[in-house]
């Protein structure tokens, strides 16, 4: 398979992620969309790892996965706190920072 195919897949996933982040009102949905974006990046890393014949990219991917897991942990914790404060997980409800 040509490298372009991987890159196209990755770009598509990334755009889907952005779309999800921007349009989802549910905080969990936003987190899922962020996961899509992160994995689009991972696909890129693996693809270029193959192009250059180096394992560095794949090693980075492993780190990135671990990072994403921690990010989800923190994100879900925030969601729980959000729910406790507002009895809802909709991002619209958290608007205390309005100037």
């Amino acid at each position: 398979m040509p490298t372009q195919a991987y890159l196209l897949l990755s770009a598509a996933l990334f755009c889907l992620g952005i779309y999800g982040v921007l349009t989802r009102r549910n905080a969990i949905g936003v987190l899922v969309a962020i996961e899509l974006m992160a994995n689009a990046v991972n696909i890129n890393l693996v693809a270029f790892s193959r192009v250059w014949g180096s394992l560095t990219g794949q090693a980075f991917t492993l780190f990135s996965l671990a990072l994403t897991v921690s990010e989800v942990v923190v994100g879900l914790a925030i969601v729980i706190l959000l729910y406790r404060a507002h009895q809802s997980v909709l991002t619209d409800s958290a608007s205390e920072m309005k100037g």
Partner: protein
Amino acid sequence: MSAFTLTRVDAALLCCAAPLLSFLILGLTPALRRTGRIAGYVSIAFAGLSTLYAASLLQGRMFAAASPPDIGQVGWLYAGGKLVASMGVQVDGISASMLVVVTVVALCVQVFSLGYLHDEPPAALGRYYTWHSLFLFSMLGLVVAPNALQLFLCWELVGLASYLLIGFYFKKPSAGQAAVKAFWVTKFADIGLGAGLLVLYVFTGTFDWSPQAVQLLGATGAAWTAGLFFLAVMGKSAQFPLHIWLPDAMEGPTPVSALLHAATMVAAGVYLIVRTYPIFQAAPGVLVFMTFLGAWTALFASIIACSQNDIKKVLAYSTAAQLGYMVSALGAGELWPGYFHLVTHAAFKALLFLGAGALIHAVHSNNLQDMGGLWPKLKISGTAFIIGAMALAGVPGFAGFFSKDAILDVLLERHLFAPWIALLAAAGLTAFYMTRVVMLALFGKPGHHTEHAHESPPSMLAPLVLLAIAALTLGFAGTSLATAAGHEYAFHLSTSGLIASSLALLGIGVGWLAYGKNAFVPGKIPAFAFVQGIVESSAVDRSFAWSYRVVFQGVSGGVAWFDRYIIDGFMNFSAWLTQMAGERLRAAQTGRVVDYLYAVVAGLLLLAAAGFWR
């Protein structure tokens, strides 16, 4: 074991360290301080130690002619790797004798205070002795200072101690005001010392008063330095027109007046001239000014002293007058007569103040009218007071006679006739007003407080006796002091001495006629009444008040306007600008997460675009 010997530098250092230690002990242990009398004993013990060390300096070659000073110092301030000023001690005939004067008077006063302040609450007494120790340390540091910067530091410290001790009865509003007034007037004058130091440093790169430094100063530098220093002297040593704080400073306890405002602190101004005399000698214009101003102060203050009814105010004006004698003598271009008078004056004026303290203690009033007829009740204190009065009046044989005579002699020798005549007149007036005080307080009609008067306790009598002996004998120390100042002196009865003592005896006679015999009433004599009128209008104080209102408030009003409308205005404008910008920008903060995410994506796209078309 080798013999333990104390060098003179060590002795001087220990002499200064003892009161500092006492101050630290009392200052840092409130429990001890609040015991009052015990704190007093601690302070007295250390002052006694200090006196012993000072006395140990008075031997051997100390008074040999032109013996070089012993200097012990450590580097203090460095600028750019170069030593600018040191801190330490300079021991020579002058500083050693001054150390003895200061410590002996301080010791006498501290012992005297035990009896005088008997009724004070313990906490107040402890505070009193703490400040006394601070004062003693600062004064000794000033005396031994090897350069002008250390002298300045200690000079300010004695000013602080003076402020604290004048305001000792701080619950009395007048005492607080007097303390503030003394502080402000002397601080104003101290601008001169600070500025003089700057001039000295700019010209010489040091704060020394060595001959090399004087050479570097040149005529211009010396004139500026000496002139500015003299401004500070005018404040500290109460020379016209900056004498106004001294009479008010009598609000402090009488022993404080004896120590600070008669014997030692006010003499610091004269001592500054003595120490930096090479600089003054290079500034002839300043010297001439000093001669005339000192003589004028002596005459002016003596006239005022004749009409005061508060025994302490009489002595305060007399102090200003005697300091005028010293300044005038130093201005005449000769060092030792002024210094000699400083030493004798310290003894007899401390004696007079402590004697006045004993009288005040007996009748609980400062007013001469309340005393009267105290002699039969207070034989010892009364005798001591009379000895002090005779020494001040310049009765032959007493200390004041010798030093005053030496001053007048120098003025006549240098053909400074106007100051000479003024000082002669002041000598006559001095004898007159001291006779007046003695007659009104000790003899004559008993006042209504006299009945309950009783002799002072031994703690007050012992210092009086000691100082009375000093006032009787110190006149014979003139030869040694002159030698220390590098001058030959042997007493001989001179023309001015004869005239001065005749005038003194005349003054005593007139005073006795007026107040002892009631032969005439001075208040009825037009000239006397006129002077009294001037004093009661307190013209000097009022002219200061006027110039304060017009000059200082005018200038500071302008400065305040600039500060409020230009400087504050600029600050307020920028604050307003920030606030308005914030008001506008707050709309951007919607609080909705999605809006921020849009901003993030937009930023990302912008960065991508920037990277693409770079």
